[in-house]
């Protein structure tokens, strides 16, 4: 099946070294956003960028470990959501494999896919952990209003979660794609070995002399 080809990856040293860098970009993306007091998390830019550059495994593992590390250092509640970050990395990697980030329709599709993965995946976790709330005050206000209005809790929980994911993932995907196309060609090429099949050679970055 075609889609599985995206996962047939040779992890060379470069791909392995790229993963911690993507994790650090996830962190920095969030730190810079909170430094500027932007009302968004923006903590998966590295995951999406890594997936677009080097495939679903790099993106997925970066997402997974970003969450593991946050859980162990600043926010233990992030731990169960590691699985969602893994899925976001996979989704972006599959989109990247098919080159969705290169066309306008594709970019919209990539965004929608990531929002769906994030919101559908997080809802059951929110139900188990928070009785369906998302822990974000505005989303939780919507949740309270909907439940009060007689909506089923799972649907209210989904809308609560999605209300946060829709703007956050929009900016995440836009920023990741802007960064991707802001890179010099040789760096895009450097990490794109995974797109080729059967070719063992890395492409051509001229080193700074």
């Amino acid at each position, binding site marked *: 099946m075609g889609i599985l080809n995206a996962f047939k990856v040779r*992890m*060379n*040293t*470069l791909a*392995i*070294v*790229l*993963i*911690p*860098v993507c*994790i*650090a*970009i996830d*962190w*920095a*993306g969030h*730190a*810079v956003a909170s*430094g*500027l*007091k*932007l*009302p968004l998390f923006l903590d998966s*830019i590295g995951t999406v*960028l890594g997936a677009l550059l080097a495939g679903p495994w790099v993106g997925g*593992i970066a997402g997974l*470990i970003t969450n*593991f*590390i946050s*859980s*162990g*250092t600043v*926010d*233990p*509640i992030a*731990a169960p959501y590691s699985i969602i970050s893994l899925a976001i990395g996979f989704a972006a990697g599959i989109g990247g494999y098919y080159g969705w980030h290169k066309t306008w329709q594709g970019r919209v599709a990539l965004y929608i896919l990531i929002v769906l993965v994030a919101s559908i995946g997080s809802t059951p976790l929110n139900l*188990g*952990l*928070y*009785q369906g*709330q998302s*822990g974000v*005050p505005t989303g*939780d206000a919507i*949740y*309270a*209003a909907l*439940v*009060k209005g007689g909506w089923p*809790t799972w649907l209210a929980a989904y809308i609560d979660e999605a209300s946060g994911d829709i703007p956050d993932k929009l900016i995440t995907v836009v*920023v990741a794609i*802007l*960064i991707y196309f*802001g*890179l010099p060609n040789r*760096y895009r090429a*450097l*990490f794109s070995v995974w797109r080729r099949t059967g070719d063992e050679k890395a492409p051509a*970055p001229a*080193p700074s002399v």
Partner: protein
Amino acid sequence: MAGGLSLYQEGASLLHRAHPLTKGVFTLSVIALAFIVPSLYWILAIALILLILVIVAGVLRRLIAVALALLLPIAVLLLAVQGFANPANHTVLFAIGPVVYYTEGLYIAAIAALRITCLVVATFLFSFTTRPADITEALMQRGLSPAMGYVVQSALQIIPQTLDMAGRIQDAQRSRGLETEGSLPKRARAYLPLMLPLVLSSLVATQERAMALEVRGFGLPVKRVRRYEFADSAVQRVTRWALALAVPAAIVARLLGWK
């Protein structure tokens, strides 16, 4: 400049000395059990055990500082929303004008908040008493690939380095006239000029770092050297198994009607 990212605090307590795997299994099992056990009393019992261990480990004060900042907003949000809007609500606790607050929601929110507290406390307890390098080393001794071990370890160091870089970049861009304060659109426009240099430099460094690793033989298919041994004991092995088995046992008990 910061070293690696870690909450670890030197110590000699029972928890500090325990095998990393014992602590890991304990943490995961306790968190799972907190969400499986059926009633408030059971959760309180788990919380009590955790509290005792926190005191034993000598990290009570630090734990309160970090955990409270995290848990307080969540607890408030849960108590406010669930007491007000939960499908099970029917016993009125109090009413302020049109806003009615219910007992059932309060109880449900309290249980959820306590479970999250167990999750947070157990995790911090683990982080406070276990060196990150020990976790990866212990896992690698049990078959985690050296590549994954490398990824986790180096991420812990690259993160603080990258955050330092973010500070330098902010200085550099502000010196060019970039505004990082003011209205939301103004601040939002500063995001890319702050992020892009960081991403570019990080990726450039990736190439050289990959070469530097190959130059040191990283990735050679050799039998891994154990960097150090962890003290283990029969008691710890039994504890690990008991804790690991307690989770499926509790699930089965719940399915059989444990209330």
